[in-house]
């Protein structure tokens, strides 16, 4: 694991992203302390996915700064070595298990490829580490040697998690990583993620629209609406006693035993195409 000398493992200050006229992310700041997990909550158009992409370097911020493990990453990596070092700091698991793995590669091969990228280990050592990672995510050897199309959604996500962990990141971004899974599988994967965190000390940045999942896995939450932060704080506090109107509306919309849908506002005609 990369050495940290106190201070947050991830810090973003004043993040901004514009796509032409559209301001997708407007002055968003967040901080993740070592071994803590933060959730970024919002619906479509909130900018949460854009923020995740900016943190891992798939999008370039229009303004603001991001640093991980003490190294600035506000600008794209200059060299391949730089990109690899960044991969060692922050990794990501995507939402769709059906497209986040190369369909022609077995789980074992995918993990091995990552190990090769980050370490100059001999074959034997790589094989051992691969087996460890496969075991860590609760898969067996046969599954790791299968092609993705032979695996279920939950199994594929486990492979994706193992592949991300192969880089030994300090921060793992979970971009709606359990949203596409069946309820019973989602529970298994959430438990798995909690186990992994206990064992490796990794910090999660959970991007999600699902408040119940957020409660289960994170310590702090940042609520986004149309690119801006509307509320932040300890997860249990924000969810039990939301201060902002939007957060309240979000919480009131989550189905739970005894829940009944009510019109948030009196049924009023929607005028603009952009809103829902």
């Amino acid at each position, binding site marked *: 694991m990369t050495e940290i000398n106190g201070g947050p493992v991830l810090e973003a200050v004043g993040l901004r992203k514009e796509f032409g006229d559209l301001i997708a992310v407007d002055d968003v700041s967040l901080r993740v302390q070592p071994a803590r997990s933060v959730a970024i909550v919002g619906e479509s158009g909130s900018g949460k996915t854009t923020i995740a992409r900016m943190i891992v370097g798939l999008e370039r911020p229009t303004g603001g700064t991001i640093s991980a493990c003490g190294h600035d990453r506000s600008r794209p990596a200059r060299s391949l070595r730089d990109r690899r070092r960044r991969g060692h700091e922050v990794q990501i698991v995507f939402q769709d298990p059906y497209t986040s793995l190369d369909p022609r590669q077995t789980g074992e091969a995918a993990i091995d490829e990552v190990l090769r990228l980050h370490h100059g280990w001999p074959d034997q050592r790589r094989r051992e580490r691969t087996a460890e990672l496969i075991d860590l995510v609760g898969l067996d050897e046969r599954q790791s040697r299968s092609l993705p199309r032979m695996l279920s959604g939950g199994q594929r996500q486990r492979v994706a998690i193992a592949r991300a962990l192969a880089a030994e990141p300090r921060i793992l971004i979970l971009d709606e990583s359990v949203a596409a899974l069946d309820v019973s599988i989602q529970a*298994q994967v959430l438990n798995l993620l909690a186990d992994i965190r206990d064992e490796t000390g990794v910090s999660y940045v959970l991007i999600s629209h699902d408040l119940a999942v957020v409660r289960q896995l994170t310590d702090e939450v940042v609520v986004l609406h149309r690119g801006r932060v509307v509320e932040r704080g300890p997860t249990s506090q924000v969810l*039990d006693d939301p201060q902002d109107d939007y957060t309240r509306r979000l919480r009131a919309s989550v189905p739970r035993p005894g829940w009944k*849908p009510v*019109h948030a506002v009196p049924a009023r005609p929607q005028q603009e195409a952009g809103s829902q």
Partner: protein
Amino acid sequence: MNEPAAVSATAAAAPAGVAAPLLEIDGLNVRLIVRGALRPVLREVSLTIRPGEALGLVGESGSGKSMTARAIDRLLPRGAEVEGSIRYDGHDVAALSGTGLRRYRNQVAMIFQDPRAHVNPVRRIGDFMTEALRTNLGVPAAEANRRALEMLGQVGIGGGARRLRQHPHELSGGMLQRVTIAAALLTEPRLLLADEPTTALDVTTQAEVMAILDDLRREFGLAMLFITHDLELAAAICDRTAVMYAGQIVEVRSSALLHDDPLHPYTAALAAARPDISRTTARLLAITGRPLSAFEAPSAECAFAPRCGHARDACRAALPELVELDGGLSRCVRVREIRGRLGTPDD
């Protein structure tokens, strides 16, 4: 201990003295060609929906819930083998053709998960909404447009005639789904088949659309089959909820009682596996293994037994029948024994 005799699901679900069922599915078995061989996807599915009643159908992947809706709407893929009967208003749906089939499709309206996949992107909203009225029911264009506008108002979409001239891509997902609901209601159906209509929507939009669906359904007195993977969502607007696993119905229960007094371990496990928004727990009660499809599940024992904390030898001896209990139905042979503690595993 005497086991209650297996009762026909249809008789059990309809108390005496109530209106005849609008939709009656009896012993539906469907086989499809999967990977070169004919395999079961629905096994002995029996359901009843009375006029004006909303029934939720809940299940995970492979449970057969979508397939059931498709069977009702006669949208099964080619090569499907169907046994058992589906009766709408007393008529055998499989025997319908021509005008009879068109009338059936007017009376049974379907709403899909992804509206964009089921709406022609090059046609205008107005065209799409009024098509059934104009072609099947012979309503003149001006009148059809008027009704369409009125219905759009009912689902909370304003904008007048301009709205009718828009194309689907100009509307957000939530708005487009409201449009499809409005379009479905225009032909004055008596039964709505809603196949995961809110799964692809944001949670606040989902709440809005659910409220609209609930209000309008009651206002027009429609029956509804609401398909979802979310137990609480189904319970929110449906009078009764049916739970499916591996192509079979494993429980039917009044929604109010479903959460606190379920009649099948799978239902209890499903509810317990879901994280709670009001409490933080160290770990969730996850079910081991993964949900099976009908063609993967063993045919001569309880399909859920391998994952069930209450499984006993009796569960593996034979395929359990659907039995009546307290106004609900259960496919668990041990239900009477373990009632009240289905959520907690035995040992």
